[in-house]
């Protein structure tokens, strides 16, 4: 039986996508014999499974996601961190400092204050409690320099690219260090602010044209133009 949509067709919540033997994949649900879309996005069929690639959405934390968080509250031995999810995450002192914090002698704020940012990994989240984070791994920790920009969370896969193709292109062309958090915050660190601005602009371009073809080539062209201009 055929599906009810063309490949990559724009669908809206409630659109009937297929019936019968197909399986409901991401952003779809099955009721009775029919599979419906639950968000606005592009429908696709992969191995009998119907998926909708979302065009809008909010980040939901998963264990092992690496995210870029912003400290919003300091409590005696932990920090509350905004990770652009419906829930604030908690970063315990022992997960940040690798040792217990002696609150009699030192202040948590001296390590990490409100407004400062961290690259951290989600270590637990089960919908009954807030997600908790750790920075006790290679490459994680407080952000000391560079720029952080926010992008639409649904564009994260595009910025990373197929097997990391887009992100490697950005790094190669700009010479900057770039980290894309799963929650749609991107950390860029270059030698100068201008270098960072060039990357930020390229990322904005990817975000705006995320669902078009030949994007990698256009980003390459963009860097070429920037270099000639400089």
């Amino acid at each position, binding site marked *: 039986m055929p599906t009810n949509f063309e490949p990559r067709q724009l669908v*809206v*919540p409630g659109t009937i996508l297929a019936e019968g033997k197909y399986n409901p994949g991401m952003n779809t649900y099955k009721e009775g014999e029919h599979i419906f879309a*639950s968000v606005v996005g592009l429908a696709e069929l992969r191995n009998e499974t119907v998926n909708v690639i979302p*065009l*809008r959405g909010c980040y939901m934390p998963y264990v092992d996601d690496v995210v870029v968080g912003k400290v919003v509250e300091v409590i005696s031995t932990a920090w509350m961190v905004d990770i652009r999810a419906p829930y604030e995450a908690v970063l315990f002192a022992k997960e940040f400092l690798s040792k217990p914090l002696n609150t009699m002698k030192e202040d948590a704020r001296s390590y990490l204050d409100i407004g400062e940012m961290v690259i951290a990994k989600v270590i637990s989240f089960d919908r009954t409690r807030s997600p908790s984070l750790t920075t006790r791994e290679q490459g994680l920790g407080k952000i000391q320099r560079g720029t952080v920009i926010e992008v639409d969370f649904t564009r994260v896969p595009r910025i990373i690219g197929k097997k990391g193709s887009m992100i490697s292109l950005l790094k190669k062309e700009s010479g900057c260090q770039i980290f894309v958090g799963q929650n749609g915050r991107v950390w860029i660190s270059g030698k100068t602010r201008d270098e960072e601005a060039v990357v930020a602009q390229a990322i904005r371009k990817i975000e705006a044209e995320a669902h078009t073809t030949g994007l990698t080539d256009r980003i390459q062209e963009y860097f070429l133009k920037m270099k000639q201009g400089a």
Partner: protein
Amino acid sequence: MSKTHLINDGIRYDGRRLDELRPIKFQLGILNNADGSAYVEWGRTKIIVGIMGPREAHPKHLAMADRCRVEALYRMATFSVGERKSPAPARREHEISKVIKEALEPAIFVELYPRATIDIYAEVIQADGSTRCAAISAAALALTDAGIPMRDLVCSVAVGKVEGQLVLDVMDEEDKQGDSDMPVAMMPNKNLVTLIQMDGLLTQDEFNRGLELAKRGCMEVHKKQKEALEEHFKKSMNSEMEEA
């Protein structure tokens, strides 16, 4: 007191047929600070809807362990009606807030966001009848814009009885001088009604015919909603998307 005739030879006060909607125009993503937003012009009725969330519920004791809370706040601007509307929330605004919340909640997958809350804010800029229907229809689009998973869109329209005849999409004059007003909201792909209210009286037969008329009207509203969504997201869907 002389009453203007609202219907002459099957043509209404504003030139519509009995089963004709007013011109409806939806727009999406009009606000930057809300997570999702929509604007609707429904004849002379103008409403802005903003969505905040899903976000943590405050105060915390209102959070529910197994599902997300949905709250709606309907408000009429002071200049939205002919006479100055007092800025204090009136009984009617409380009622419509509740009704909007209950019309949309069955469509939202609330179990996906336990302990969180989704806030729906509807601001009536100009009122000319059927504001709750327009607010519900626009809120469904704003929720879609916020990326909140839903079973279906919700579309809504009112049916009324004016001078003994059933009319679709009641405007202000018809509401005030008419005999009856029945707003209906439904999930179009499911054929499920999520809201039905009635002011005034209808016979059993009129009710049944009115409900059928409302369903047809809802389908037309749904078509407009889909058009607005397609227009808004067209940019993102041109040509094929590369493998991400």
